[in-house]
Each structure stands twice: as structure tokens, then as C-alpha cells.
């Protein structure tokens, strides 16, 4: 084989596409010819880079979110065009006086409604500007023990309560049936009930454990002001109606239709809904001007879905000190910083998907020593009972969540539990900075 023949076959040779004899001839030539060897090395080097680039992009799947946004904008443009044509047609088809009258009605009626809704919101913000405490009670679609920051329209409702004492010193508690977070003025603790796991931050935190959006809401005066500002800045549609409760009290009901691409100050920003439209309904008491209830609907073609609701708000009521005391069992598995393992490199080299597979397979074998390498604590008994003997059915492509740190990945999984039931969710893994290992954060 000469150099020209070798160069012709080089890519096929590297790709393993040559027959045995041709491959041997090509390799023999490369061994004896420095120029072709250099060419081979250059192509192999470029290939390595291309493979690495391809692998970086292997998990990415943004077609659907992009198309949702693109089609949404397309619909918006069409709507604006239709409105513009409508006005043009009126202008051409009616007498000048008639057209002016219609336009006057539209111009007067629309801002009037918006102004009234804005007025109710502004007075509502003013009415709750100085709070000493607040207690919110409602329901949210999510798992009972799921992360506080993970509302999910596919889940059933669970109850959620939030207490916040602003004075004399800041304390708060957020609770769902399977998860509670408490800041008692000294430290901040998260406790996950079904798995008997806890995490303690040895100082008071204004917000922690993904409760930030609830804190934003609880800071009601700011929430209402921000909502009004965002609606006006973004041109979101605002509406107002009145209703009379069974008690005879009149309620002002403000509806805001928030569009996707939420501004940073929005309390639903980074809560999986950035690319969806939401309808927010605020009920104010017409007399006291105070907010009494909130409902958030996800706008979908198939019909709006209620995802979060606050149906009771207590203002400035003294909160029982016991609310901020967390009584925990003695055998809680407390979060610890992951330590480097003797074979740490093996685990640090894993992708999030590989780590999820290794974790579930270890649980399936009930090999808790192995499983513990993916947990920031000894594997809690609750999880052992739940995951022991499970069988991995499938793993999906990992994804990241907007607003989550760069090292956070969510891997969709389906497992068959020992009792035969199928369990499907997204496991949240975080790449630990110190050890480089993927460590479980939630989603079981």
C-alpha cells in the first residue's frame, strides 16, 4: 500500500470499516511511514474532540420547550395582527363617528377595568405592609415528601402550611405531610418524615431548603406590589369581578394572566412554569382591602389546572411558640458532608444517569454499603424498606432545572418495588464539590 492509497482508506481504517486484509495493510503502512502516521494521529485527535463535543450534547433535549415558546409567540403575534385588522376594518367600514365611538368605548372600558384591578392590588399591598406575623394555609400539587420547590401539575394535592413571625424575632415553619422545615431563631432544620432524615444548618436562615418562593409569597405586601408592577410592565391581562360570600361580605377578585418568560422578581420564577402561562386569582376583602385567598392555575390547551392555592390567611395573630419547636425521633439520619472514598475516582467519573443506575441497582441487591456511596448520610431505614429489593425498569435522559445550581441533575426513573408496585419519579442528584460524586438530593 502506498501513501495515496493509505490516505484514501484512513478514515475507513479508523472507523473499523476495512476488511481484515486491507486493515492490516493500512496499519502496516502507518507503522512504517511517519507522514501517514502523523496524518492518522491528527485525524484521531480531531475525532476525539468531536466525540467529546458530541458527548457533551448527548443528553440535551430542548426541542419541546423551544417549540412551546416559539408557537406561543406565534399565536401572540397572530392575535395582535387580528386586533390590528379589526380596528382597521372598523375604521374603514363604519362612519367616522361610529368608528370613533367604538374605539372610545374600547379605550375607555379596558383601562378602566385595569385601573380598578390595579387599584385593588395597590390598596391590598398597602393593607398588609406592616405585619408582625402571618399564617398561610392551602394546598399544592406535589409529592407529600417532595422538595418544597417542586410543584408538579401531574401530582395530586397535598396540604401546605406556612407560619412566619416577623417580630419580635424572625422565625418560620413550612410543613407538608411528609416534609417540614423550621427556623427557630437559632438554627434551621429540615426533616423528611417518611425516611426519617434530617438536615441542620447551625444558624438562622431567612429562607432555606427551597422554601424561597413561599417566603416571597408570605412577604405579601411585596408580592402584591411586584405582581402589579410585573403585570403593568409586561402588559399582562388584568381583570376584576366582585362576588358576595355567604357571610354577605363583598370580595374583589383580581385575575392576572401571566405570560411565560417570567421576570426574575416573580414568585413562580424557576418553579417549572417559566415557559407556561399562568392565571393568578387574588381575592381581597372589599372592606378591609386585605388579601384572603390566592389560586394559581397553569394555562393549558386542554384546560387550566389549579396547581397552588392559599385558602386561609391569618394576619398578625400570635403564633404558638410550639410551632417553632421541632420534636424529632432520636434515631434521625442526619445529613453529613460526603467523604472521599478509597475508590472515589470510579464514582466521580460517573454521569448522573450512571450514578442513578448504580444507586438503584445497589438498593435492588440490598447492598447498603454500596448504596451509601450515593447518600449524604447512612441510608435511612425508611429508604431501605422502600427501595430494598427494587428492580430498575427504566432511566430517562437527565435534565437540569432552571434556577438550580449547575451541578444539579434530575434523572427520570421507573422502578418496580418489592411489593410489585411501579414507582416513577425524577431522582435529584447533585455533584458534590469535594468528592466529585453524584449525591442524592431528593426525588425518591
Amino acid at each position, binding site marked *: 500500500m502506498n501513501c495515496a492509497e493509505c490516505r484514501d482508506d484512513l478514515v475507513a481504517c479508523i*472507523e473499523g470499516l476495512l476488511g481484515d486484509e486491507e486493515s492490516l495493510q493500512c496499519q502496516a503502512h502507518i507503522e512504517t511511514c511517519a507522514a501517514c502516521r502523523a496524518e492518522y494521529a491528527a485525524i484521531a485527535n*480531531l475525532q476525539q474532540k468531536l466525540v467529546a463535543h458530541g458527548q457533551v*450534547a*448527548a443528553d*440535551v433535549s*430542548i426541542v419541546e420547550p423551544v417549540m412551546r415558546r*416559539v408557537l406561543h*409567540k406565534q399565536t401572540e403575534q397572530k392575535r395582535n395582527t387580528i386586533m390590528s385588522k379589526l380596528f382597521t376594518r372598523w375604521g374603514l367600514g363604519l362612519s367616522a363617528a361610529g368608528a370613533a365611538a367604538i374605539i372610545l368605548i374600547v379605550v375607555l372600558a379596558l383601562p378602566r377595568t385595569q385601573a380598578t384591578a390595579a387599584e385593588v392590588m395597590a390598596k391590598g399591598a398597602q393593607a398588609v405592609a406592616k405585619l408582625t406575623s402571618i399564617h398561610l394555609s392551602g394546598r399544592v400539587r406535589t409529592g407529600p415528601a417532595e422538595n418544597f420547590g417542586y410543584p408538579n401539575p401531574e401530582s395530586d394535592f397535598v396540604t401546605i402550611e406556612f407560619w412566619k413571625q416577623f417580630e419580635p424575632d424572625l422565625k418560620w415553619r413550612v410543613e407538608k405531610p411528609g416534609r417540614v422545615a423550621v427556623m427557630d431563631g437559632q438554627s434551621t432544620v429540615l426533616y423528611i418524615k417518611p425516611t426519617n432524615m434530617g438536615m441542620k444548618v447551625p444558624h438562622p436562615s431567612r429562607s432555606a431548603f427551597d422554601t424561597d418562593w413561599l417566603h416571597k409569597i408570605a412577604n405579601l405586601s411585596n408580592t402584591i406590589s411586584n405582581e402589579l408592577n410585573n403585570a403593568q410592565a409586561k402588559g399582562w391581562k388584568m381583570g376584576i369581578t366582585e362576588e358576595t360570600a355567604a357571610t354577605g361580605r363583598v370580595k374583589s377578585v383580581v385575575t392576572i394572566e401571566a405570560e411565560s418568560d417570567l421576570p426574575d422578581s416573580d414568585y413562580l420564577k424557576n418553579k417549572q412554569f417559566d415557559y407556561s402561562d399562568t392565571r393568578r386569582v387574588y381575592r381581597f376583602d372589599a372592606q378591609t382591602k386585605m388579601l384572603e385567598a390566592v389560586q394559581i392555575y397553569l394555562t393549558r390547551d386542554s384546560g387550566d389546572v389549579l396547581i397552588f392555592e392559599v385558602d386561609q390567611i391569618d394576619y398578625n395573630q400570635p403564633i404558638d411558640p410550639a410551632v417553632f419547636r421541632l420534636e424529632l425521633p432520636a434515631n434521625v439520619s442526619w445529613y453529613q458532608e460526603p467523604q472521599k472514598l478509597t475508590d472515589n475516582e470510579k464514582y466521580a467519573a460517573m454521569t448522573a444517569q450512571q450514578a442513578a443506575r448504580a444507586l438503584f441497582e445497589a438498593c435492588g441487591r440490598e447492598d447498603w454499603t454500596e448504596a451509601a456511596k450515593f447518600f449524604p448520610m447512612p441510608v435511612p431505614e425508611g429508604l431501605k424498606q422502600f427501595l430494598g429489593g427494587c428492580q430498575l425498569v427504566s432511566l430517562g435522559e437527565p435534565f437540569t432545572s432552571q434556577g438550580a445550581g*449547575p451541578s444539579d441533575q434530575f434523572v427520570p426513573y421507573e422502578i418496580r418495588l418489592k411489593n410489585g408496585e411501579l414507582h416513577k419519579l425524577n431522582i435529584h442528584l447533585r455533584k458534590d464539590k469535594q468528592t466529585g460524586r453524584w449525591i442524592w438530593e431528593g426525588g425518591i
Partner: protein
Amino acid sequence: MDLTDKEYVQRCQDGHPEDFRLLVHRYQGPLFSYLTGRLGNRSQAEEAAQESFVRAFQSLKKLRKPESFYSWLLGIAGRVALEQFRSLKRRQQDREVAETMMADAGDNQPEYLLDETIALLPETYRQVILLRYYEGLSCPEVAQRLDMPLGTVTKTLSRAYALLRQELQVSGSVDRTINQMEHP
């Protein structure tokens, strides 16, 4: 058989926005790789990639050379990446992240040059590179997808490699790597 970029762009311009899906599918991988190189952060890269596609769609009617869709898209993505840097720098709480990103992006600079160079390839060569490396197809699978003989695929790859190396040698990145390999 797949349509060319030019055909897809023209269909979108002619009132078939759904066809944009096929362009997103075709370029999501290389665009994400490019932005990861620029931003050094997968989460930010994914956000920037989405934003770049949306902006590209909104400006699609202004695209004079539909056959240059991908290099035009990379131009948009470059501006989006720059905006993200600036935005992160502005946000006090993310200062540390921004600094990390800037440092990472500096380290990775030669890497995203490869993505930029791929964008400059004639479409025939780019298509084979994208299918082989970003969709992970083998050469026989590429041949089947493009309805071309296997020999043509390897020859196209060979020519694409040569063009890529030629372009990259301008920046010196491949030379440096080869020198390091030959003279460790």
C-alpha cells in the same frame, strides 16, 4: 430524506412554524456544545440555547441566506452568551458563579472554536459530521440516513476533517495538540 437547512428555513418563512422543530432537532446538540464551551456551565448553556433558538425564530424572516442558518444561529448564541455573562456579573448573589463561568469559559476557549468551525463547513460536510458525532450514528447508519454509499460517507468525512483541520490550524489549536502528542 431530510430537507436542507435552506428548505426548512424557507418553509418556516412561508408560514409553517412547526418545521422549525426539525431545525431545533438538527442543531440542539452542536449549539449546546458550543454554548457549554462558551459558558462552562450546562445549566446556563441549556437556557442560552433555548433563548437563541427562540430569537432565531423571531428573526427568521430577516435571514437573507437560509443556507447559512447554523452560522447565523451561532452568531445569535454568541450574543446571548455575552448577555448571560453580563447579567450574572450584575447579580451580586451570583458573583461567584459568574467568576467560575468566566474562568471556565477562558479555559475552554479552544473547544468552542471547533463548534464555530463546524458551522462554517459546507452543508454536505456539516450534515455528515453532525449525524456521526452529535446524533451518534455509525458510518453505515449515516449512509442509510442520507441514502448514500458507505464509501461516499467516509470520503465526505475525510474531506470534512481536512477542512476542519485547515480552519482550526489558523487558530493553532490543532497544531498545539498534535505537537503535544508527538513531543510529550
